[in-house]
């Protein structure tokens, strides 16, 4: 069923004081934002929540002055990615990576069945992705993020579609290579 209001209309309504419009905007995008944040932050749910919350705080503060130079969705993802990147950068400066252990600090444990089916496989994939350079990791996760086409990913990153595709290809090559190495090692 098509949405009654566009994202831009909802943001405009919120800027005029209608908090429910922000709720509607969150209903549309929040889970996706949480998911991407989780991916960008090595599976850390708690950090993902914090980053998404920061994203909303920024949206609330700047909603009134949103100029519409890009789609609201693009704007949301840019804020999220920049916040997540900031967090990783801060952690890297402290020279200890993201705080806590990925496997231990998810905040929730995956269902036992899922863990049985894909636990090891997901861990090795996450490890391989985490080993990629930040740019490649970002392009890879954003391009395969649910609800994002390559076109919208290119728009979020502010690069031409062709550039995105070539970089994605390169990232996949490296990922496959790393996964192959991991399997060989195991």
């Amino acid at each position, binding site marked *: 069923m098509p949405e009654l209001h566009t994202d831009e209309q909802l943001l405009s309504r919120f800027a005029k004081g209608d908090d429910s419009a922000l709720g509607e*905007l969150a209903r549309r995008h929040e889970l996706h934002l949480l998911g991407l944040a*989780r991916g960008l932050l090595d599976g850390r749910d708690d950090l993902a929540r914090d980053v998404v919350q920061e994203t909303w705080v920024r949206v609330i503060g*700047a909603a009134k002055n949103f100029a519409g130079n890009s789609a609201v969705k693009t704007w949301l993802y*840019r804020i999220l990615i920049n916040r997540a990147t900031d967090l990783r950068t801060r952690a890297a400066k402290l020279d200890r990576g993201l705080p806590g252990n990925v496997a231990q600090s998810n905040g929730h444990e995956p269902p036992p069945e899922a863990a049985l089916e894909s636990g090891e496989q997901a861990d090795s994939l996450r490890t391989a992705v985490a080993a990629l350079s930040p740019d490649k990791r970002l392009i890879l*996760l954003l391009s*395969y993020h*649910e609800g994002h086409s390559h076109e919208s990913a290119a728009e979020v990153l502010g690069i031409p579609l062709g550039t995105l595709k070539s970089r994605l290809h390169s990232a996949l090559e490296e990922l496959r290579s790393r996964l192959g190495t991991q399997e060989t090692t195991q």
Partner: protein
Amino acid sequence: MTANDPLAHELTSLTSWSGNPVEPWRAALNIARPQRGVRGLLSARIPNTLAALAVTIILIGLVAVMLPSMGKARSSNRLGRVTVSSQLADASVPPPLAGFAYGYQPPVGGRLQEGWASADADVPATTQPAASSPDRQVIRKATIELKTPDVRSAFLKAAMVLSEANSEYMEQSSLTGQDTSLQASLTLRVAASRLSQVLTQLRELGVVTSETAGGEDVTDQIVDIEARLRNEQRVETELLSLLESRNDAPLKEILDLRESINQVREQIERMTAQRDRLGRLVSLATILVIIRADDAPVPVIKEQSTLDYLIEQVDAAWETSLRHLSDSLAFLIRTLVGGLLWWALALAAYVAIRAAFKRAARRAAQEPAPTL
């Protein structure tokens, strides 16, 4: 890699949220709500308001700095009120000149250094002038008309108010008519510093029926004459030195030079005479005294009741208020119309500042694309 590719599926699952619905947007709203309430209001509204306030302050400063003529005009208005005219029905009304001082200082010498204002030392402080300009050169004139049963006596007494020590003199006098049509006329030249004092003495000679006083500011004329005079004197000196240095010049040239010197000297003498004349006019005020016979009994000056005093004060206050209101309105009009250019500039500045604020806010709201 296709959608059915297991790696693609795994990658997608890495960025999917399988946790509990946590709704961080609500927490964000709770964090930001106080900001939206007070700080948000401040951040949203105050910059423009501050900008408007700053521009207004700048505007007032500009108007005050760039339109000093307004201040001058106000000063001139005060000086312009020197002329006083009043028709007095009877002597119970305070004479109009009683409280006026003209800010006059005689131009030269120590003879007339006593200012008019100081001559009015017995005048209540509340009626003293608000402003005085010590270097103004003003020619004072006053006319006073009196009625008295004994015109001859008043005529003689009027002539006696002159002080020879101050070089005062009677310029003209006449006594015409007989009995009830008897009329005396005197033109007195008195020291400007004593004008108020002399008028007070004249008022005592009869019932004042009319009294006017006026002043003509000749400061600019005197300054102009003196400047021209200095210039001519300089030219004279130059011509004289030229004459001395060209002793061996042909006779015709020497004669021409002497002719030029004569012309310059003539100019100097003429201007010196003008300056002296103006100086005399300034140093000596002119009073025209007209004394007429009065058969009617001199009105008895009644003791002023409290009610009359109250009414009089209210009248005066009303007049003063209206005058101040007029001044304020005039100032407002001058500020609005006279400063139109500055108003327009200030408005343009305000619009520009506001637009800059908006642009800055929009820029701040934009999120740059992640750096790769």
